[in-house]
C-alpha cells in the first residue's frame, strides 16, 4: 500500500459495489460518446459530449478509488477484464437507438444515479462519500439537461412525444434494474457502506419517476402495473399508451432486464466489450 494510505482494509463488498458503480458510468459514458459528431442539433452535440466525458471521468474516479487500495490500475479495471466480470446494469449497454431512446435512457439513468448518490454520500467509507459528493456537483447539470429535454419533447408535437413515451416505457424496468442488489450487498449493508438498501432505493426511483411522468402527461399507469407485464404497448395518436392486446415477448420484464450485477449481459455488450477493450487487450503492457 502507498505511504499514508488509510489503514481501512479493502473489503470484498467495497470492491463489488464500487466496481459496479464504475462499470455503469463507463458503459453508459461509452454509449453516450457514440453520439459525438452525430447528435440531431449541433449545439446539443457539444453539450451531450460533455455529459459522456463526465460519465467516463466518474468511472475513472471510481476505478482509481479501488486501484489505489488494491495496488491495481484504473485502466486495467476499465479495459482489461473479461466480459463476465463487468457488473453494470444492462440498461447501460443497450444500443443507443434513436434520440428518443437516448433521451429516455439519459433521463432514467441520471435520476436513478441521483437517488443512489444521495444515499451514498452517507456511506461509512469516507473515500467513497467524498468522491460521491464531487460527482453529485457535476450531475446537477446532467439532471437539468435531461429534465429540460424530456419536458420539451413531452410538451411538443405528437411524434416526438409518442416516441419518447414509448422509449421511456420500454426501458423503464431495465433502468429500475440499476437497483438490482449488488454482489455482496448484504456485506455492504452490514458495513454501512450502503446506508440504504437497493430495493428501498428502487422504490424511491419508481415513485419519483412515475410521478414526474404523470405530471408531464406521459401516464405511467402502465409502468406501475408491474415487472411481469408482457403485453406490448403502442402509443396512440395523442401520445398515450394503449395495450395492443398482443402477447408478444417484447415486454420489458424485469427478468429480462436484470442480471447485470451478476455479470450476465446481452448480445449488445458483446460488440461493445470487443471495441472497448480491443486496443488495450491487443497490446499487453503498452502505454498510451
Amino acid at each position, binding site marked *: 500500500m502507498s505511504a499514508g494510505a488509510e489503514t481501512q482494509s479493502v473489503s470484498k463488498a467495497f470492491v463489488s459495489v464500487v466496481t459496479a458503480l464504475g462499470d455503469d458510468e*463507463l458503459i453508459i459514458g*461509452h454509449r453516450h*460518446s*457514440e453520439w*459525438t*459528431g*452525430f447528435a*440531431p*442539433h*449541433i*449545439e446539443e*452535440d*457539444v453539450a451531450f*459530449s*460533455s455529459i*459522456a*466525458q463526465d460519465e*467516463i*471521468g466518474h*468511472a*475513472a474516479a471510481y*476505478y482509481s478509488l479501488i486501484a489505489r487500495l488494491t495496488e491495481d490500475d*484504473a*485502466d486495467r479495471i*476499465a*479495459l482489461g477484464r473479461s466480459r463476465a466480470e463487468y457488473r453494470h446494469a444492462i440498461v447501460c449497454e443497450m444500443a443507443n437507438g*434513436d*434520440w*428518443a431512446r437516448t433521451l429516455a435512457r439519459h433521463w432514467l439513468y441520471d435520476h436513478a444515479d441521483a437517488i443512489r448518490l444521495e444515499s451514498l454520500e452517507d456511506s461509512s467509507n469516507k473515500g467513497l462519500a467524498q468522491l460521491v459528493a464531487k460527482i453529485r456537483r457535476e450531475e446537477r447539470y446532467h439532471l437539468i439537461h435531461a429534465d429540460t429535454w424530456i*419536458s*420539451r*419533447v413531452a*410538451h*411538443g*408535437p405528437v*411524434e*416526438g412525444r409518442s*416516441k419518447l413515451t414509448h422509449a421511456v416505457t420500454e426501458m423503464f424496468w431495465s433502468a429500475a434494474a440499476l437497483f438490482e442488489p449488488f454482489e455482496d450487498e448484504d456485506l455492504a449493508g452490514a458495513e454501512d457502506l450502503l446506508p440504504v438498501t437497493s430495493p428501498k432505493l428502487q422504490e424511491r426511483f419508481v415513485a419519483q419517476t412515475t410521478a414526474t411522468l404523470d*405530471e408531464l*402527461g406521459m401516464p405511467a399507469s402502465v409502468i406501475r402495473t408491474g415487472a411481469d407485464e408482457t403485453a406490448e404497448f403502442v402509443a396512440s395518436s395523442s401520445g398515450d399508451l394503449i395495450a395492443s392486446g398482443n402477447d408478444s415477448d417484447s415486454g420489458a420484464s424485469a427478468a429480462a432486464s436484470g442480471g447485470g450485477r451478476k455479470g450476465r449481459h446481452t448480445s449488445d455488450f458483446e460488440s*461493445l466489450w470487443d*471495441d*472497448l477493450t*480491443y*486496443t*488495450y487487450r491487443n*497490446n499487453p*503492457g*503498452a*502505454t*498510451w
Partner: protein
Amino acid sequence: MTYDDKLTRFTSHIEEGGKVEAEDWMPEDYRRGVLKFIEMHANSEIMGALPERECLPRAPSLQRKMSLAAKIQDEVGHSQLLYRVAEDLGKSRDNMYADLVTGHSKFHNVFHYPVYHWGDVGLIGWLIDGAALVTQAALRDSSYAPYTRVLKRICSEEQLHLRHGEDITLEMASGTNQQRAMFQDALDRWWLAIIHFFGPRSKPDKDLLLRWKVKTRTNEDLRQEFLDRYVPKVLELGFTLPTPVPHHDHESGHWLVRDEDIDWAPLDAIKRNEGPETARRLKLRREMYDGHRWVRDSMAEPAVHTA
C-alpha cells in the same frame, strides 16, 4: 453611387488591407466566394468528426477516451462557430446542412478516408491538425473580419489538438514495435492525402479568394511551410515517408516534394464526392438527419409550460 463606383471603392479598400464586416456592402462574387469558403470549412469540421469518432470506442485508456471525445467535441464546436459566421452571409444553417448531406457542397479531402486503428488517431491529431493549423493561422489575415474572429478561438483549440496528437504519437513512437508499426501504417496510408490537403498549385489570376484576400497565401506556400516544419519531426522519430518522398534541398533548406511524384487522381475523385468513404459517411448523416426531423420539430417553438 453606382455599382461600379462601389466596386472600385471596395477593391481599393481590400488592396489597402481593409477588412469587411457582415453588414458592409460587398460585391456578389465576394459574398458568394467567402460564404462558400466558410461553408466548406464548417462542413469539414463536422465531417471531420466522423473518422475520429470511429476511433473512440477502441481508445486504449480512460484518459485517451476522454481527451479524444473532447477533441472531437471541439471540432463540432468549430463547425458551430463557422456555420454561424456563414449564416450571416445569407444562407441558413438548415440549408447548408441539407446541401452537405445531399452531396451538393464540399468538405476537405482528408475526411473522405477510412480509419483503422489508434495509429490513425496519432497521425490525424498530429499531422492533419498540424496541416490545418498552418492554413488556419494564415487565414487569420483574411479580409473577412467575422471569419478571423472565430479563427482566433479555433486556432488556439487546434494548438491544443496538435499537442494532444503529438503526445499520442510520441507515446507510440517510444513504445512497442507493434505501436510503432501502427503509426507507420497510418503514415503510409495518409501521407498523400495530407499533401493533397493544401490543394494543387494556386493560380493567383484565376483565384477569386486570393484576389479578394479572403486567402492571403498560395497553396504551395502553405504546403511548403508544413513540410519544413513536420518532415524533420517525423524523420527524427525513425519513421519513413512514402511517395511523394520529401528530400532536403541543402541550398534553400527546404524539404521539397517533386510535382511529378504527386498523384492527383484521388483528389479529383474526392472533388466529385467520390472518395473511399464519402458515400457511406454522407448516407449516415443523411439518415440521421432525415430520421430526426421530429427533434427539429420539437425544438421549433418555445416550450409550452403547464401551469
